[in-house]
């Protein structure tokens, strides 16, 4: 345990921070969803994501870090390890929906892979939450398929959202310095494998939905997507943290 603890903590921070921030972004649809069902869906997924973040922070707490609230509400952006993709504002529904599809497909595969983790608490949590995330991917897949095939306008908008989101989504798989330790110690099979499985699943659903996979190569790969895993973030993260921690900053002992 001792020599890979830092690596495990780093993985947990990356995952928990992704879930916390995408959860917060999802919650921004509460009251604004284009139809009632979608308002409820995004609000429910937000609650799930916060639950997953909390459970991951709790494992960090058991490894000697501060408690979940302190971790979520008192770090500044330099100490957050989420990817840039989750930080972007919700914008139009097509953008949020496409981000939800690309992020949750990766999230589902990641937790699937972790059900065999040598880090037992993480494996247990993974076995629990994969059933919950299945609802998220099911929701995303249905909408991508329906809007990809519905009308010319919906197809064009979903394709534009995909073209914009896809390069950003690659930031999910940015490796940390602990990648080889995680793989060698059987904690996590690595970002490369995750990205490979993700690309296969995403391509299949995209193509079945009358959409085209964007052409990504070294030349047009967006560098904007990377840096989050090392503590470098977009201009959107700190304002989100300020808003999220507003009550906590005024009164850390506030009772709800």
């Amino acid at each position, binding site marked *: 345990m001792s020599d890979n603890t830092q690596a495990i903590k780093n993985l947990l921070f990356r995952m928990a921070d992704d879930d916390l921030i995408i959860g917060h972004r999802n919650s921004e649809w509460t009251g604004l969803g284009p139809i009632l*069902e979608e308002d*409820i*869906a995004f*609000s*429910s*997924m937000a*609650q*799930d*994501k*916060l*639950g*997953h973040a*909390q*459970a991951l922070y709790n494992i960090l707490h058991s490894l000697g870090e501060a408690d979940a609230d302190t971790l979520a509400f008192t770090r500044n952006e330099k100490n957050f390890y989420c990817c840039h993709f989750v930080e972007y504002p919700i914008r139009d529904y097509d953008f949020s929906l496409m981000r939800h599809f690309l992020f949750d497909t990766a999230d589902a595969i990641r937790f699937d892979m972790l059900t065999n983790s040598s880090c037992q*608490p993480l494996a*247990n*949590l993974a*076995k*629990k*939450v*994969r*059933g*919950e995330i*299945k*609802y998220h991917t*099911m*929701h995303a897949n249905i909408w991508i398929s329906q809007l990809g095939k519905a009308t010319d306008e919906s197809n064009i908008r979903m394709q534009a959202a995909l073209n914009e989101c896809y390069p950003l989504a690659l930031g999910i798989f940015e490796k940390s310095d602990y990648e080889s330790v995680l793989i060698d110690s059987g904690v996590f099979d690595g970002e490369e494998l995750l990205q490979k499985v993700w690309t296969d699943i995403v391509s299949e659903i995209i193509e079945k939905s009358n959409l085209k996979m964007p052409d990504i190569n070294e030349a047009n790969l967006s560098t904007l997507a990377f840096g989050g895993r090392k503590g470098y973030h977009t201009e959107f993260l700190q304002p989100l943290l300020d808003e999220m921690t507003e009550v906590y900053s005024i009164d850390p002992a506030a009772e709800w």
Partner: protein
Amino acid sequence: MYDMDELTLITEEEIISLLHEVKDPEIPRVSVVELGMITGIKISADNKVEVRMTPTFAGCPAVEILKSEIKNKVLELPVEDVEVKVDFDVQWSTDMITEEGRKHLKESGFALPAHLNNELISIDLLTNVECPFCGSKKTRLRNPFGPTLCRAIHYCDACSQAFEQFKPV
């Protein structure tokens, strides 16, 4: 020295039977025991009790309330101390709801979750769910997300009513 015959030893059965009085705050007909949330009980020789529970959903906001209700309930027994631990060592699934629990869910107006037998949910298991009001299977899934994390919303074409399902997970 104590006379062994006079020592009141608490049993696991007594605790379980008492915990039937701790209900889901959103569905007051159904207890935490019936939902399958209680995953272990340890009673030490000095009458200290450890109750282990697992959340239905990781993000369930009722966990903290249930934790304190469980603790207070067990403290009604002559015990030294009670500790309630929440973990994912046993992973909750709707398959863990007892037969009695399923009966009480149905009486509370919920459609029942299909048994998953360790499989993940698929869309087939969410379609043509039996309407809790009229028993028809001419129903449609309206939203896999509902008013709480554990519920989905369906619509019955036979009796023209929306209904909620305790969703399989």
